[in-house]
């Protein structure tokens, strides 16, 4: 069972709202000082799911990321968690792309890695919140594609995927090779064990360019975008919360009920 996991490095999604700032001219987020970027949460879930499949059925897990040199840290973390290999797509030509160009480059890279049974991705990146790249890769590679998965099981050579629906989930039988994008319920990511951290220290991470993927500079990055960003901004909102008090918390609770009644809400 050879699995490729796509892993994106993103700004920490837990940056508190009052520290969240954007540079409107550059249309970028300004990370607060000292807050390092992290592995996209759902990608960590995907990697964990991949590692569990490997532990049960054998095979190899390869982590794949498109990003700047900084993303190497996130790939090292993937190896520390247990990935066997990692590949970084890092090339100025690949920068400032959109979902389309990102999926195109990742799909080409997956083709170049070759010999895979399963591609696991996150259901969405916590910076774009797009939920497009994984499905796009599936479409470009012509794979059966499922999102978002909350359970995964390999039995008798076929994959059973629990796909979230509005009021529960459906159990799908999916032929391999396939692409599955996962939600957080699937598996809580492990902390890297010491052995893994040492392996990550030694690991060599190959870097591929657009040309290595057979892509021209006009296919990818800012030049290949289908969608243009016109504006990025933060909406400011005023607070006007009416705090209900009482001599004790219980009295505050009773007073709240009365206030809701006065406001005709109950």
């Amino acid at each position, binding site marked *: 069972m050879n699995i490729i996991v796509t892993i994106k490095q993103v700004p920490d999604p837990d940056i508190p709202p009052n520290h969240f700032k954007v540079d409107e001219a550059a249309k970028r987020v300004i990370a607060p000082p000292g807050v390092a970027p992290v592995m996209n949460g759902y990608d960590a879930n995907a990697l964990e799911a991949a590692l569990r499949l490997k532990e049960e059925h054998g095979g190899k897990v390869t982590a794949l990321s498109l990003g700047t040199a900084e993303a190497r840290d996130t790939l090292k973390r993937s190896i520390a968690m247990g990935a066997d290999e990692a590949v970084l797509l890092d090339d100025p030509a690949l920068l400032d792309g959109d979902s389309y160009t990102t999926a195109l480059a990742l799909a080409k890279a997956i083709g170049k890695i070759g010999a895979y049974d399963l591609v696991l991705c996150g259901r969405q990146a916590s910076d774009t919140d797009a939920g497009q790249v994984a499905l*796009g890769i599936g479409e470009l590679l012509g794979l059966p594609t499922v999102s978002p998965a909350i359970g995964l099981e390999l039995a008798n050579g076929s994959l059973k995927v*629990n796909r979230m629906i509005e009021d529960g*989930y459906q*159990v799908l*039988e999916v032929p391999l090779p396939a692409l599955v994008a996962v939600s957080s319920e699937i598996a809580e990511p492990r902390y890297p064990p010491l052995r893994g951290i040492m392996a990550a220290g030694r690991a060599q991470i190959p870097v591929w360019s657009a040309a290595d993927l057979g892509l021209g500079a006009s296919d990818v990055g800012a030049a290949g975008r289908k*969608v243009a960003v016109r504006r990025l901004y933060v909406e400011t909102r005023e607070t006007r919360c009416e705090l209900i008090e009482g001599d004790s918390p219980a009295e505050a609770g009773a007073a709240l009920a009365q206030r*809701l009644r006065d406001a005709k809400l109950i």
Partner: protein
Amino acid sequence: MPRSGGVMVVAEAAEGGLAPISAELAAVGRTLADELSQPLSAVLLGSGAAAAVEELARLGPDRVLVADDLGLADYQADAYLAVLAPLVREEGPEILLLGQTPSMRELAPRLAFRLGTGLTTDCTALRIEDGVMVMTKPVFGGSALSELSIPEARPQIATVRARVFQPAPPRQDRQAEVRHLEVKLDAVRTRVLETVREAASSGPRLKDAKVVVSGGRGLGGPENWNYVEQLAETLGAAVGATRAVTDAGWVPSAFQVGLTGVTISPDLYITVGVSGAVQHIAGCSGARNIVAINKDPDANIFKHARFGVVADYKQVVPALTQRIKELRG
């Protein structure tokens, strides 16, 4: 791709009729179409969905296109794509809108990639500027908003967040022309073995409840979930949860409110031990009145709440529940 223009929306059927997102799509689709002075068409895929077609034809589109086939009874990405991709190629709309629903959020990206065009998911506002659609989309969990457009590729595709756009009212005086499409399905590669329903079996449904009570990690553990349940029961409210709670398995995923859960817009939304992370707010900012019970006065939820109590929920909630019972007699 031929460009006959127009705005096309993809409606969705639900048990016995049309899913509510359809009327929301019809309304925003109509606004954009009028702005461009172009026609609006609505597509419906399903099986034996005559009632839904009838309903859709009264929501203001100029044309309704129906793909009716047993193989389309339930959403399956491969089958739905096999109908929609050639249809959109043939019709050549300028703009294509779908709902950010469990089905269409999986389908829309594949459709856009298959057509080689651009897509913006989960939009909260759409407008026309200089002949193109400008799409507003929350990003970074809702901490920022971006405005995007698709300058060249066609159609311009967007999925819209549920319960953000006002639904189109049904009109008795007007009915669209209905055309039935010839259906040719691709082989469906994935097979549904089983469907498991996990949502609450009693009480109102989370997504359309008028009153919702949600619990967060601040409850401390699943053994305290009854605080939320009793308050909800007293109010006849639906129960919701944060992702911290669903990830921990206290309740199933179907209870999750937020960016990656259900979008709700109740009249009253009471949160207990919920910090108000942007990703949670993304799913409840349409609530008309938010009430926060949280022991941390600096919790972000108070920036969104109309009423708040800063205290331990274990003291507040039983008294609140009791007093509501008394008030309601």
